[in-house]
């Protein structure tokens, strides 16, 4: 996560909060509001539920703050609380699970990328268009949970391999394997769709 911590002493802030200065919690979490929401939305699929999960996660983190011993980074700890909250909601929501939320086994089979020759880079300005953002979010939601959580931590939140491993309590090797498969699945689904997303070509594609 790209948070500039140069002028923040989070350990000191946490100590003050635990000593009774609760107001400081507002400042402590401010840099992480966005990443917690993104993680929540990757799992909940609608804004209202994602916001609810984000709020619960921040409250739980506050209540459990005394358990945070600085063995992990606060951001990593916070994101794993968010993930647990999202999993808890999904479990509760699906009496008959549509997908196994706690799946730990690696899924078998080889993931092949989409084969292209004529890839033209999609410029980031394309993200100004809602349909492009929706295509990306939808592709993330199509990943099964074990791949989605790794992909979101690493490629959406930009945690390192080791931070991702720590937050998910899996080995760095497992992170790499799942990340590889997740990226190939994303490429496989998205490359054919985004091939036509170059702004200069859109009218030929959709008119």
């Amino acid at each position, binding site marked *: 996560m790209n948070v500039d911590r140069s002028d923040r002493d989070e350990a000191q802030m946490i100590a003050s909060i635990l000593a009774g200065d*609760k*107001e400081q*919690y*507002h400042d402590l*979490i401010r840099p992480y*509001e*966005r990443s917690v*929401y*993104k993680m929540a*939305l990757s799992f909940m699929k609608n*804004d209202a539920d994602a*916001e609810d999960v*984000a*709020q619960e996660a*921040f*409250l739980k983190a*506050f209540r459990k703050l005394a358990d945070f011993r600085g063995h992990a980074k606060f951001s990593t700890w916070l994101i794993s609380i968010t993930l647990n909250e999202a999993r808890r909601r999904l479990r509760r929501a699906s009496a008959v699970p549509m997908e196994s939320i706690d799946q730990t086994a690696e899924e078998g089979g080889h993931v*092949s*990328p*989409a*084969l*292209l*020759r*004529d*890839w033209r*880079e*999609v410029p*980031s300005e*394309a*993200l*100004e268009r809602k349909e492009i*953002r929706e295509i*990306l*979010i939808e592709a*993330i939601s199509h990943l099964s949970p074990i791949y989605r959580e790794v*992909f979101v931590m690493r*490629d*959406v939140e*930009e945690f390192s*391999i080791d931070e991702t491993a720590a937050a998910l309590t899996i080995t760095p090797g497992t992170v*790499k394997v799942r*990340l*590889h498969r997740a*990226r*190939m699945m*994303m*490429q496989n689904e*998205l*490359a054919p769709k*985004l091939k036509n997303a170059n702004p200069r070509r859109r009218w030929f594609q959709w008119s």
Partner: protein
Amino acid sequence: MVIECKHVWNYLSDYLDDSLSPETKELVQRHLEHCEICSAILDSTRNIVVLTADDRVFELPVGYSERLHARLAREMGGDAAKAREDTGD
């Protein structure tokens, strides 16, 4: 030593993260130099990773931050918060 496309695909994710051994990295690089398809797969995967990391993809709902801090203020039980906003729940 020459490697096939299918083997190159297995290395693409680590290649993007620059976590391959120097020997493997060179093998992959040499393959990419002459293989249009693997180059396109690498470019498209890298492009997708760049796009998904962009903050514009996930829009925060309007008022999200305000609602979050209001709820925290209510439920953290701080004295200042209580005085400001005593809703009784």
